């Protein structure tokens, strides 16, 4: 379903993603793990047409997202690291706009919206403004919205960041359910190793832009001779903390936290 070959992305002299190749089969849940600044988000951006690769090939459901951009876009849904809902609009209105943007016919749009909002336990709150939602509810709505146009692939970029264990647990239960019922391929990133261990069928570990390991969680643990995925991850990527300068986005995130009372 996703095929990446020799993917390379450089920003000036800095190589963010260095010769990465992997494949994700249809219906699989693939977790992409790595320390901060390892190249996870850059890879997702390239997979989702937001960034052009310097070189290498990408195939989504057999399509090159660079060449047939709009067709490729219809085939995936994405939940970004930072929120992308309109807080002034209601849950139903956010779904409605998404449906129009993805050319989902009116009737089907209504039907899918009801189905998904019920599945993600948001139907009772459909006419409330999204800014009144909790962090977990917003996340669920974003995922429900990502499914509205029946994508074949769902990208989740750190979807559980800042959520409490209850919300995280519930979120993964929903994602697993949709993965099974709609046979959607899921590509996710997370910093919570226990989640990856529990949810993902296969895992790829990226560090300094290079893919350092891939396989099932148990294979990776076996390979490193460790008992938990967290230990395996630390063995693979080392325990030094990555020096990363705060960029403009981080500064604004800080600002947003101050103003919104750190709701997420």
């Amino acid at each position, binding site marked *: 379903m996703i095929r990446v070959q020799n993917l390379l992305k450089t920003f000036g002299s800095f190589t963010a993603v260095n010769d990465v190749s992997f494949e994700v089969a249809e219906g699989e849940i693939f977790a992409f793990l790595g320390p901060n600044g390892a190249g996870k988000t850059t890879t997702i951006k390239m997979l989702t047409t937001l*960034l052009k690769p310097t070189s290498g090939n990408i195939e989504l459901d057999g399509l090159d997202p660079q060449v047939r951009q709009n067709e490729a*876009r219809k085939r995936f849904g994405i939940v970004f690291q*930072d929120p992308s809902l*309109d807080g*002034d*609009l209601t849950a139903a209105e956010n779904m409605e706009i*998404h449906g129009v*943007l*993805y050319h989902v016919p009116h009737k089907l749009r209504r039907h899918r919206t009801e189905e998904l909002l019920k599945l993600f336990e948001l139907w009772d709150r459909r006419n409330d403004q999204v800014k009144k939602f909790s962090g977990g509810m917003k996340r669920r709505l974003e995922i429900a919205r990502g499914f509205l146009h029946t994508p074949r692939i769902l990208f989740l970029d750190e979807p559980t960041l800042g959520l409490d264990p209850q919300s995280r647990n519930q979120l993964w239960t929903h994602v697993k359910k949709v993965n099974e019922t709609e046979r959607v391929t899921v590509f996710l990133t997370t910093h919570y190793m226990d989640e990856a261990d529990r949810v993902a069928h296969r895992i790829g570990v990226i560090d300094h832009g290079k893919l350092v390991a891939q396989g099932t969680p148990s294979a990776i643990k076996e390979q490193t001779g460790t008992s938990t995925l967290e230990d395996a991850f630390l063995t693979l990527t080392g325990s030094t903390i990555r020096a990363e300068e705060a960029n403009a986005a981080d500064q*604004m995130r800080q600002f947003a936290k101050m103003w919104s009372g750190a709701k997420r």
Partner: protein
Amino acid sequence: MSVIYILWLRELKRYTRSRAQIVASLGQPLLYLLVLGFGLGPVFKRAGNGNYLQFVAPGVIGMSVLFSSIFSGLGLLWDRQFGFLKETLVAPVSRLQIMIGRTLGGATVAVIQGMLVMTICLLAGFRPVHFFLIPVAMGFMVMIALLFAALGMAIGSGLQDMQGFQLIMNFLVMPIYFLSGALFPLTGLGMVLGYVTKADPLAYGIDGMRNVFGSPMAAFDPRVDFLVLVVVAAVFIVFGAWRFNKIEI
């Protein structure tokens, strides 16, 4: 078409739902209108230029349209990181449609804001020569709104942080306002100030409204006002679309 419509509708819904913000945004124009209108009135009259309230009302209307429209574009800074923009950028629609939808939405909101301020001006004692000229003045508001919504879009597409926003505010938006002749007549200025004000597109919008309303001290021919606005707006819309197309997130 439906994409442009729904993005336009979104801007309107957001506007009508933020009542507190609407009231707050009327504060500044009201201050200019009342404090300057009544404060500078006697001096203006003694200088033989007529009624200052009649003069300043189109300026204050122009100011509210300017702020409202240019902010709709500068909001991209915030929207790109924490808002809805990314959602639209990965959708299977062209960037041009998104840009047009947002610009039209921002411009519509700005015109509504201008109409609100005009109503306040009328309540404060502002009297156009004929009330049936109000729709013509609205035409000028639409031009100002489109022009600056597109400019805001062009600038907002490249803004990276809050400091940049402050810079634009202090070195672009405020000068555009103060040099537009919103508060003082554009006739008989010194050479430098004369040229600078002539380079300010808002000057033509406000002057156009003065011509239509029959306010004292209009500086240009209304046809010149109209022509300049149309040309500059067209250029800014193309520029805005080009810049918007270049956004990377």
